[in-house]
């Protein structure tokens, strides 16, 4: 049994019980429906800003992009503006593809040592696909939820819902994004358990958000399709939160509170965890800088003078030998 994921699994189960029992047995609706969500949001916002400012406070002394394509040099050699961007539009394009489509991960290969010895490389698309599925479906789910926080609901959310429920299976219709999210989280969990190397480097904090997000998606689907909670009540509560007139409508049910408690925990956990990669990817100096260092001087704000061995000192030591060897010198 893997202690690293057991710890996180138990933590998420405890969180589930905490919210469920808290609401169903102790009647703490106000705490779980109003206080904690507000607190979590504040922690999230302040935490993320703090973290990003913390990074921004450290300067970028050197321009160190990873150059993954041909440099711009001679006019007749075709430069790769995307992988070795000389200009800012190139950097923007590179970042756009990194952030929205995980381009570097798309390169992923798998190596295998075979007889001979011979090392084989094969394309390994699963991680890229899994990651894309996970992030995009999660985004879709979040955007869909804006229905609960807006009145009137903008038409494009309706459009997104229509697209998301395209397959029209069941009543109410199953959203593709919810299913994909669950499946992707499960895949990301499985690879952490099954692939020996990934398992070896995984920490409990790598499992915790997976279980938590699984819990969020699971309780969400449960409410929509099985527990069938009072949607109007849920919207009332959500609208109360965003209009700063929080209310606790009657009879929404414990699962709903578990759902928003999980979301709250995720929000509050976010700034202190690796989930900050969402912000960090924008700040990575190996990706977000133009590769024009020989054409445009990059300034290091803390550049300081250093001790060097000057030519004069050098000549002083070797002058005689230099003269003898016929090398020109400054002082005869």
């Amino acid at each position, binding site marked *: 049994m893997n202690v690293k994921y057991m710890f996180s699994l138990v933590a998420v189960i405890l969180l589930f019980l905490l919210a469920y029992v808290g609401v169903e047995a102790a009647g703490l609706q106000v705490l779980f429906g109003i206080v904690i969500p507000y607190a979590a949001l504040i922690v999230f916002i302040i935490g993320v800003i703090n973290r990003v400012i913390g990074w921004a406070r450290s300067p970028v002394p050197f321009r160190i992009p990873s*150059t993954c394509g041909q440099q711009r040099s001679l006019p007749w050699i075709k430069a790769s503006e995307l992988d070795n961007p000389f200009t800012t539009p190139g950097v923007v394009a590179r970042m756009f593809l990194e952030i929205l489509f995980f381009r570097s991960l798309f390169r992923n290969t798998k190596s295998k*040592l075979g007889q001979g010895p011979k090392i084989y490389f094969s394309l390994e698309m699963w991680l890229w696909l899994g990651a894309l599925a996970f992030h995009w479906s999660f985004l879709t789910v979040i955007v869909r939820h804006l229905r609960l926080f807006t009145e009137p609901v903008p038409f494009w959310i309706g459009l997104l819902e229509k697209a998301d429920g395209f397959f029209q299976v069941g009543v109410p219709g199953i959203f593709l994004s919810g299913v994909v999210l669950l499946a992707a989280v499960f895949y990301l969990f499985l*690879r952490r358990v099954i692939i020996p190397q990934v398992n070896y480097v995984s920490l409990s904090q790598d499992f915790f958000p997976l279980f938590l997000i699984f819990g969020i998606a699971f309780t969400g689907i449960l409410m929509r399709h099985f527990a069938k909670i009072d949607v109007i009540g849920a919207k009332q509560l959500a609208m109360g939160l965003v209009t700063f007139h929080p209310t606790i409508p009657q009879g929404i049910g414990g699962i709903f509170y578990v759902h928003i408690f999980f979301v709250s925990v995720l929000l509050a956990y976010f700034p202190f965890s690796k989930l900050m990669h969402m912000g960090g990817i924008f700040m990575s100096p*190996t*990706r977000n800088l133009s590769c024009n*260092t020989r054409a445009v*001087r990059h300034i*290091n704000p803390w550049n300081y003078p250093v001790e060097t061995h000057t030519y004069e000192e050098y000549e002083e030591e070797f002058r005689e030998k230099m003269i003898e060897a016929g090398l020109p010198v400054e002082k005869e």
Partner: protein
Amino acid sequence: MSDPKPNELIEKIDYNPPQKGWMDVPVKIRKGMYCYASNPKSVEYVHLPHARPWNPLEEDWKLPDNWKEIVHNAFRERLDKFRSFKVFMDICVRCGACADKCHFFIGTGDPKNMPVLRAELLRSVYRNDFTAAGKILGKVAGARELTLDVLKEWWYYFFQCTECRRCSVFCPYGIDTAEITIMAREIFNLLGLNIDWIATPIANCYRTGNHLGIQPHAFKEMIEFFVDDIEEKTGVKVEPSFNKKGADILFVTPSGDVFADPGTYTAMGYLMLFHYLKEQGLNVTWSTYASEGGNFGFFTSHEMMKRLNAKMYAEAKRLGVKWILGGECGHMWRVINQYMDTMNGPADFLEEPVSPITGTKFTNAKSTKMVHLSEFTADLIYHNKLKLDKSRNDSLIVTYHDSCNPARGMGLFDEPRYVINSVCNHFHDMPRNTIREQTFCCGSGSGLNAGEDTELRLCGGLPRANAVKHVHEKFGVNMLATICAIDRAALPPLMNYWVPGVGVTGLTEMVANALIMPGEAERTTNLRGEPLSGMEE
């Protein structure tokens, strides 16, 4: 100790990680896998702290009493000075995409050679010392305290990274292990924990201008020896100039090129190329003071890199040249491309580089004012300024090794390939996953090409050698071309070990062999003295 046989080395590779968690597996510093400790005299010479004799195999590393405090403060200082370091400490999600991208992991199977885990060695202490979660939750949050064993583990594994940056290409956030290794090594140097294969070249370079400690008169003599050699083989007497004021161009190349085969043939190539262009208006000088292109300071600290690199601009200024031409070297070009102008610029006393032969403006180097020889040569060939007889290289079936730093720290891919295709008839690239930005390290970069860590180098060089083997078997490749002096030193033994029958050459050596020199005698041999094809007796 004799080196293990190839099959023994392969048998040792086991990709299955141990049962125990990595924090519970103590480091074992193993012979053949580490480099000797720095010579205190060398450390002292460049005024780095805590110079002392010490031995990595001994229990007591004779650290300063307050070593933990030094590490902690140095860590914090670097987090505050380098956004790269801070972001890279925070955002790794341990997806594992980098794991099998590292040549040392592929070649050893040691899980701590996975880039992610190499970084976690530092990150675990970072969490413990600098993050709230780590302070509260401890090991559950992946945090651990810095102990002597942890420091030894750092030392062992950050000297098993060649700063090649291959992992950074595959990381979805661009986390660059080279950057992390650089920080770790900076910290080691504050404790006097460098390896001698870096420390002594640095001291040499500081004093004599080059890593090998060649004094000015000897440097000149060595090159004059090449002059005689060239005359013997081509009938042309080349006349290089040294420390010449009023030259247009300062030429700087790694000292390895003047020191040992097969780099020496590349050095002869430079001499011949410059001589050939003399009549067309090239006025170039060598310098005995700036007689090193490489920069082992880069493997020590940013400060040491700057101290050694300063000589290039200083000498260019003293001699009054217009711009600088750089020879074939790997990490040298990362330093020039990404650091030099920032550290030691602005080079406002130089002019925007223009080829005196073709008139091409090297606008991509207009601030740093330093041009790569491959850019320069490719431009010459493109403008038909070199008379070349490709067939002289007909006995060669060539492949090209992209050196890590010009690849991933510059993007120099097509210039050298253009040059190779212009000087030989048989060129075959290695498989796509092993060249260009995905190129594999020679296994000996970043100061690790010592003798005592041969096993490590052979393991790390396995993926590179294996790709060469592929084209050797498929196309009969018998020559591996490269533009790095460390490659020229490290790859011949690597080839001998894994792919016997493949030689190693610099680019300019091949150019010089094909170059039809005005007034040359009939060329019967190449620069190595081997008969040219059709000239065999």
